[in-house]
């Protein structure tokens, strides 16, 4: 079971500049844990100190916000696309 995880530009420093990686997992939580297992450091940018997904990091499964699905418990299946979309604040 593998899904395509789309990595936004600001986080590609953790993925050797890859904008998409194949990661295994049955739900979003597992996929993100496996992502951090493979690319150390990326989890810290996604989760806060208490292990909660940072609010400004938005996770989409097939373009649908997981907050309107089952959150991190949203099940994924082969070929699904998980996108990480952080809000960026720069304008300078």
């Amino acid at each position: 079971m593998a899904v395509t995880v789309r990595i936004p530009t600001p986080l590609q420093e953790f993925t050797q500049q890859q904008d998409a990686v194949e990661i295994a997992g049955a739900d979003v939580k597992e996929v993100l844990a496996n992502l951090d297992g493979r690319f150390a450091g990326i989890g810290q940018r996604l989760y806060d100190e208490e292990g909660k997904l940072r609010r400004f990091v938005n996770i989409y499964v097939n373009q649908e916000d997981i907050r309107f699905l089952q959150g991190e418990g949203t099940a994924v299946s082969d070929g699904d696309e998980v996108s990480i979309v952080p809000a960026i604040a720069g304008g300078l």
Partner: protein
Amino acid sequence: MSLHHPRAGLPDEAPPASVNASTARMSDKSVLAGSSALIVGVGGLGCPAALALAAEGVGRVGLADHDAVTLDNLARQILHRTEDIGRLKVDSGADSIFRLSSEVAVDKIPQRLTRENAARIIAPYDVIVDGSDNLAAKLALNDACAAAGKPWVMGGVLRFFGQILTILPGRSACLRCLVGEEGAGARGLDCGDAGVFGAVAGFVGMAQAADALRVLRGLPPAWSNRLMTADLWKNTVGSVRVAQDPDCPACALAGSGQTKIPARRGALV
């Protein structure tokens, strides 16, 4: 003038009759000349946005920025020139717009937009274009626009990456729907950390102006309930759907005239 009612007499979705710039300006003149836009932050996003709005014939453009021009600004802040270094960005920006078109009235607001002054600064304008460089300013703008019912076009850039979300208060997802409560961990990714590719700022600023012009013409914005994401390194543009958060305090207050946003339930950080 209320922007909650599409202006009458405009063909829906019809592009200008000609690609010729002067013809396009003529056809929109009556609508745009009576309209106004505020640019918050006269930097990498605000400069191209202000230029596009003034060139298109928007009658009044407000420039809000407390900062002065520095050498490293010049690469992407296209209203400013070498001889402007040290001048206030609002002075330099106003001069540039005046050189482009003496018909545009420019308001200079040499202040940093804050939670305290946001309502007063945005009040005279029909649409607000966000060119601020930090999440706190964007959230202050979000909440003030929600309370006042003002449409605004958020922009963000980082390295080669850009985003746009246009917010019609009470009717489409707002920045708080997207990022939640302001807090230590919700700082977002500021561009100061990593720099900005000049072309992405120009691209995003111009696209923000285009959506602001759609709002002024009474057309549905391209980027409401949909976050535009651009990567100017790979040169790709995409988008993701953003839905209104039923618990969003800013959306709940949209148009109510209240400015106090209560703490988000179960705030994340």
